[in-house]
Structures are given as structure tokens and as C-alpha cells.
């Protein structure tokens, strides 16, 4: 896969310096094109061919995510993303308060590049990644909650919800997870899915990745405990599937359930969630 890297400029925080270094190392290790964010902002035409010919990798330094926001403002499709601040937390390293690249910063940049190169080498799965053959039938009838001109759908049966607007649909000892119609409408067009890693073990109400729209970053709060056995690769490559079909093709991950009977006690059925949605819509 041919790639181009858009990174933080590296002139505000140490994490930015690492992002910039990672971009340079990606050019060396994977022959990626480097996109200067300042020049891109000044002249999109300069990079039109680069963007047309390459998959875009964005490397943000800190959670301000300037590079991501620039890409979104220009309607650029992001293929992969790295946030140095998150990578730093995972690494256990610390960065000195300087914009000059120190030893730990260089090591972190190399770790990021190694991860990107490895993910580029792995072929993208055509089907949901993981090993799950469970077939989930499409949702049946819907309850409709109305507020002003808005309508929010909630499947009448088979789905359970937490109060963070994430649904779970159990089937045997596995379950699919996604976000509700109310939440997808609140987020508006979802443009990036940061899915959890395969085999991740998560507690009930733990984090199952994040979704990003131009409006918000949304943490997917796990409605149940379990182990990730599949990630919906179609949603990762086309996040607006969540907007189009939040309870069906827009599922995000599949878990092997570890504590369903107890977890269910803290979840809402469709009627109870409908009341919650009504309340939230009125208060918003």
C-alpha cells in the first residue's frame, strides 16, 4: 500500500516532535510521502496528486489533534491514525519538556513506525476480522422515539443498552456491540473508528475504542464484559455505515461474553432505553 503521512508540525509540545519524527521515519522505512500541514493548509493543490495516489496516515502529537482536524476540514479520507500521547501512555516512557528529540522520543517514534509498517504489511481482511462464524439476523421491528423533527429508532427486542448509548446484542455466548440511533444522530457523520485490538479483554463499562465525528470524540463504553473476537472491518474502512445502519451493518465489535447474566442487570431493555432517549433529547 502506498502511503502519505500528515503529522503534527512538532513545534508546540514534545509529543509533536515525536509525531514529526515518526513522519520522517515513515518516509525512510516505507517510502511514504510527507505532507507538510502548514503547506497543505495553504495550498491543497500542492498535494492533490499525492492524496489521490496514496492512503493517508495521520500522526497527531497531542489530543488537540490539529493534523486530524486539518484533514477533516479538507474532507480527506484518513486510512490510519496514531496519537502520540496515547502511544506514550502505552509505552510507559516519559518525554523531557523540550522540543528537541530526546532518546525516549526517538524510541517512541520508532515504535510508532514499526507498528504502522507492521499494520501496512498485514492484508486488510475482506470479512470482519477475527474468528467468528456467528450469524446475527437483522433487527426486527423498531420503537420510535420522536422529539421535534427527529426520530430515534430502538429495536423492540434482542438489544440491551447502557446509559452511554451503546447497545449489545447477545446470541449464545457471543454478542455484537454498536451505538444507538440516537447517538449516531447526535454525533452526525462519523469519520473515523478507532477499534479495539483483537483479543482485548474488557470489563463492563470499560473502553471499546472511540468514534470521531466533526462534532465529537465518542468513547464506546462497553455494555458487557468479554474478549474481542471480531472487529467489523467494513465499519473501520467506511465509518458512515454506523450512521446508515447503526443496529445492523454498523456493528463495531463482537465479544465472547464473560459475565452476561450479571452484566445484564445493569443494562436497559428497549422500553427503558426509549425513556432515557426521550429524556436526553428533551434535555439536550
Amino acid at each position: 500500500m502506498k502511503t502519505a503521512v500528515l503529522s503534527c508540525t512538532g513545534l508546540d509540545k514534545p509529543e509533536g516532535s515525536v509525531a514529526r519524527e515518526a513522519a520522517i521515519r515513515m518516509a525512510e522505512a516505507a517510502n511514504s510521502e510527507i505532507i507538510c500541514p502548514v503547506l497543505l493548509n495553504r495550498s491543497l493543490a500542492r498535494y492533490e496528486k499525492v492524496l489521490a495516489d496514496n492512503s493517508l496516515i495521520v500522526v497527531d502529537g497531542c489530543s488537540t489533534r490539529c493534523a486530524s482536524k486539518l484533514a477533516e476540514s479538507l474532507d480527506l479520507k484518513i486510512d490510519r491514525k496514531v496519537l502520540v500521547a496515547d502511544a506514550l501512555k502505552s509505552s510507559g516512557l516519559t518525554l523531557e519538556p523540550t522540543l528537541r528529540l530526546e532518546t525516549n522520543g526517538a524510541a517512541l517514534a520508532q515504535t510508532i513506525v514499526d507498528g504502522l509498517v507492521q499494520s501496512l504489511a498485514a492484508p486488510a481482511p475482506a470479512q470482519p476480522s477475527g474468528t467468528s462464524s456467528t450469524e446475527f439476523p437483522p433487527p426486527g421491528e423498531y420503537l420510535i422515539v420522536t422529539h421535534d423533527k427527529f426520530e430515534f429508532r430502538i429495536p423492540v427486542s434482542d438489544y440491551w443498552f447502557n446509559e452511554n448509548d451503546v447497545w449489545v446484542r447477545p446470541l449464545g455466548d457471543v454478542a455484537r456491540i454498536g451505538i444507538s440511533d440516537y447517538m449516531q444522530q447526535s454525533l452526525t457523520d462519523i469519520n473515523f473508528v478507532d477499534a479495539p485490538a483483537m483479543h482485548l479483554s474488557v470489563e463492563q463499562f470499560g473502553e471499546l475504542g472511540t468514534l470521531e465525528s466533526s462534532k465529537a470524540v465518542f468513547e464506546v463504553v462497553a455494555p458487557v464484559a468479554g474478549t474481542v473476537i471480531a472487529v467489523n472491518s467494513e465499519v473501520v474502512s467506511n465509518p458512515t455505515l454506523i450512521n446508515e445502519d447503526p443496529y445492523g451493518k454498523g456493528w463495531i465489535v463482537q465479544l465472547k461474553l464473560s459475565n452476561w447474566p450479571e452484566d445484564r442487570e445493569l443494562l436497559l431493555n428497549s422500553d427503558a432505553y426509549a425513556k432515557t432517549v426521550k429524556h436526553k433529547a428533551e434535555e439536550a
Partner: protein
Amino acid sequence: MSEATFMGVPREKIVWHPTIDYQKCTFCMECANFCPHRVFEQREGDRRLVVANPNNCVVFCRACSKTCGPDALSFPDKQATIAQIKQMREQVSVQ
């Protein structure tokens, strides 16, 4: 937005809201502009940003911290909060 209860527990009994580290905060106001629940308020003086409405914060939501470049926002431990909620639910159910 104010929610009267969360998982059957009165919202005001659940300690879940951001804490601002004023050593790190640059008062960029990204979080205040982002949060639709008016958890933050801008003020005059040295501390131009405060957590004015902690109970407006959606329990388990940490989205504002994901907009914070200087990493100045922190939240309580989730598992400890869940344990507290479960305990309060049990107390409610025996009453």
C-alpha cells in the same frame, strides 16, 4: 444536561466529573467549547476555567479529556465508580 438518575442511582451521589490540573491547563477552552452538557464554565481571574456543573457530566463519559492537548483533565477510576454504583443500587433495593 442534568440526569436525575444513572443506573437507578441519584446522579448527585455518583462522583464522576473531570478535574482540571491547573499546572497543565492552558485555558484554550477546547473542552468548554466541546462539552454540550455545560460542565465547564469560563470565569474572570487566574482560573478562567472551572468545573461549575459536575453533576451535568455524563457518567463514564471522558470525551472532553480526549480534546485536551495538555492532558490537563482527569477522571475518577472507572472500576471504583462502578463498584460504588453497584453498592448504592443494592442499598436502594433493600430499602
